């Protein structure tokens, strides 16, 4: 089996691996560093103790040597005394001190005195080490030092490991040595090692258990999250995650639940929005249809309007011509009326002349009448005179009477003339009045005709303007027609776009229906079904769907289907 890279390890393995590594490290450190250190320390202590013992012996020898130097005794005496003193020295459990010279000749040995005076250079331990030669070498090289070797314990033949310390006393060329068995050190070391191993094993077990528990604690929510995520990935939004803890994993689970809730909300909204979009698209389609109808009607009415406008244009043109003709006629009438007016003025003038003449005649007639009156008076006076004259005046009275009758006839005639003239004057003035009235009327007629002419001109101008306006209207109607056609094409485009929109909404619903929002599968299915009603053979409005879309009625859904087919 191929080993996975660390990154791909499971969290349990990872966490336990930490523990394992720690344990191994501790073990290694204990075994490789701590134990040798302890051993070294123990050995060092032994060495120090040996050193002290060797120093004591050397000090004793030195003391004797100094006394010999002072002359208390001879040097040989000193040698003997030193040998005896050192021979009797014992420490620990019967450990001893021996002395050899630099040529590995035994000078003094308290346990094996038979060796004294003999060279022990050939003496070797069971492993073949020439221990005394080694000692002299150390003493010669460093002055003092340790030598390890095997030596049988007192009373035993089997060799045991032994550590000896040698110290050189130069004046005499003696090498003072002492040794102790170090097998107890090894025993102690074994005891310590065993204890450490036991403790480490217990620790390792505890650590591993704890780390396994911790790892499990960490792993469990993660597994839950993974599971939930997998379900999410499959579109299942019904996942319910229970966050039991407040740590990061718990927060992760809580966040995931929130995320799921959020997604659920979004999906629900999306579904709703898709439905609404679908409905809206259907409504747009409906509106477009009616709009299209309206546009068709509009186009028809535009055509009608255009035709009517053309008719109107023709009639306005004829109106303009007629009004121009009428204006001309009115102008002619005005000329005639003006002529009549001037004739009337002439008539009035003539009448005035007649009146003047009549007045003159009347004046003359008055004069005649006056004269007749005077004549009458004269005749009367003459008659009176004649009466007073009596018989003589009779003939005169006759003449006076004749004159009076003449005067009376003259008066009568004058009166008749006056009457006639008055009559004629009356009639003339009446005629003048009538003529003036007629003239006035003619003037009024002239004014009226002028007004008529002006009005006719205005009518002609207005007709022209109307004609221009109608032309503009025709142009505008053409534009309206174009706009209507453009509208129609736009409506078609809008219809297509609405259908496209509906299709998009349906596909959106299809996409969104990937998400399982409700526990009830039936609802989800109905949602999916309502999302694509066009594909259904019979649009049965189902109760769940009504529940999902409470605003939408069955009729509306039928309409939607119709539109989908449309």
């Amino acid at each position, binding site marked *: 089996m191929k080993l996975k890279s660390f990154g791909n390890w499971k969290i349990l393995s990872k966490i336990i691996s930490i523990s394992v590594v720690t344990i191994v490290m501790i073990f290694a450190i204990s075994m490789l560093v701590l134990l040798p250190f302890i051993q070294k320390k123990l050995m060092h202590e032994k060495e120090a103790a040996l050193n002290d013992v060797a120093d004591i012996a050397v000090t004793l020898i030195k003391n004797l040597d100094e006394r010999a130097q002072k002359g208390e005794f001879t040097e040989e005496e000193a040698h003997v005394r030193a040998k005896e003193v050192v021979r009797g020295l014992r420490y620990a459990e019967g450990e001893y001190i021996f002395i050899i010279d630099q040529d590995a000749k035994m000078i003094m040995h308290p346990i094996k005195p038979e060796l004294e005076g003999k060279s022990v250079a050939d003496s070797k331990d069971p492993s073949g080490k020439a221990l005394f030669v080694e000692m002299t070498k150390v003493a010669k090289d460093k002055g003092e030092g340790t030598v390890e070797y095997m030596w049988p314990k007192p009373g035993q033949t089997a060799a045991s490991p032994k550590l000896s310390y040698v110290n050189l006393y130069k004046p005499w060329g003696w090498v003072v040595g002492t040794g102790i068995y170090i097998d107890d050190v090894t025993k102690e070391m074994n005891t310590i090692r065993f204890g450490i191993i036991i403790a480490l094993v217990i620790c390792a077990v505890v650590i591993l258990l704890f780390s396994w528990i911790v790892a499990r604690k960490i792993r469990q929510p993660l597994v839950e999250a993974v599971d939930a995520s997998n379900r999410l990935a499959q579109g299942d939004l019904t996942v319910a995650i229970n966050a039991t803890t407040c740590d990061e994993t718990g927060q992760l689970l809580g966040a995931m639940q929130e995320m799921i809730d959020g997604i659920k909300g979004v999906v629900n909204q999306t579904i709703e929005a898709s439905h609404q979009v679908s409905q809206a698209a259907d409504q747009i389609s409906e509106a477009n249809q009616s709009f299209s109808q309206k546009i068709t009607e509009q186009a028809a009415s535009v055509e009608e309007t255009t035709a009517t406008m053309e008719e109107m244009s023709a009639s306005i043109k004829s109106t303009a011509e007629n009004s121009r003709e009428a204006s001309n006629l009115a102008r002619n009438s005005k000329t005639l009326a003006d002529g009549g007016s001037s004739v009337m003025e002439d008539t009035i003038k003539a009448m005035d002349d007649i009146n003047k003449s009549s007045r003159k005649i009347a004046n003359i007639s008055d004069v005649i009448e006056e004269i007749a009156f005077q004549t009458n008076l004269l005749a009367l006076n003459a008659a009176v005179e004649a*009466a007073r004259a009596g018989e003589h005046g009779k003939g005169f009275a006759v003449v006076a009477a004749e004159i009076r009758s003449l005067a009376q006839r003259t008066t*009568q005639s004058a*009166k008749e003339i006056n009457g006639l003239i008055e009559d004629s004057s009356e009639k003339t003035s009446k005629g003048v009045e009538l003529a003036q009235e007629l003239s006035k009327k003619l003037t009024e007629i002239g004014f009226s005709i002028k007004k008529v002419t002006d009005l006719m001109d205005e009518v002609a101008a207005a007709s022209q303007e109307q004609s221009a306006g109608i032309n503009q209207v025709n142009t505008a109607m053409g534009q309206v027609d174009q706009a209507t056609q453009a509208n129609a094409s736009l409506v078609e485009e809008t219809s297509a776009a609405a259908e496209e929109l509906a299709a998009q909404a349906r596909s959106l619903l299809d996409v969104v229906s990937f998400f399982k929002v409700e526990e009830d599968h039936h609802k989800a299915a109905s949602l999916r079904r309502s999302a694509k009603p066009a594909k259904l053979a019979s649009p049965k409005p189902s109760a769940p769907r009504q529940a999902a879309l409470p605003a939408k009625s069955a009729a509306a859904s039928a309409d939607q289907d119709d539109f989908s087919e449309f």
Partner: protein
Amino acid sequence: MNEFELGGTQQRSGEGGDNGREYVTFSLNAELYAFDALQVQEIIELTTVTKVPHLPGHLKGVINLRGTIIPVIDLKQKFGMDGAGQYRKHTCIIVTEFSAGVMGLIVDTVSDIMNIPAANISPPPDFGARINTEFIAGMAKTGDSLVLLLNVDRVLTDEESSVVSQVVEHAPELQTNTTET
């Protein structure tokens, strides 16, 4: 204008009649009156009458007739008839001679000079003592109509006579204060 009609229908019967007297007939509001022709001095047109202060209403003033100052009265006013003071074109003044002097009488028109025989003249009617009829000399029948013959001396009372005499006396002192009639 009746005078002409009347004039036209006059009868010249007095020409050869016995004891017939000439009378000047005139009209006041279409009533026909007459004076004795001998008492009539002249018939003139109505001319400017100079007003004299403090005179009774019917005394209109004075006129200058060829240098002679003559007082003038309105006969219709004097008789209390309607239309007094309304003068027309052919209103005339009859200048009469009577006992107190000469006086002008304003009449509507002078109709004619008539010869009326005494047989055609009746005495004035008696309306009783209370009604004064003494200024009527008689009533003359001319055809179907009646003409009242007036006595000039009686028509003008003493008052007027005195005025006439005063006017005649003081006439030269009067200033000509003419007004349009």
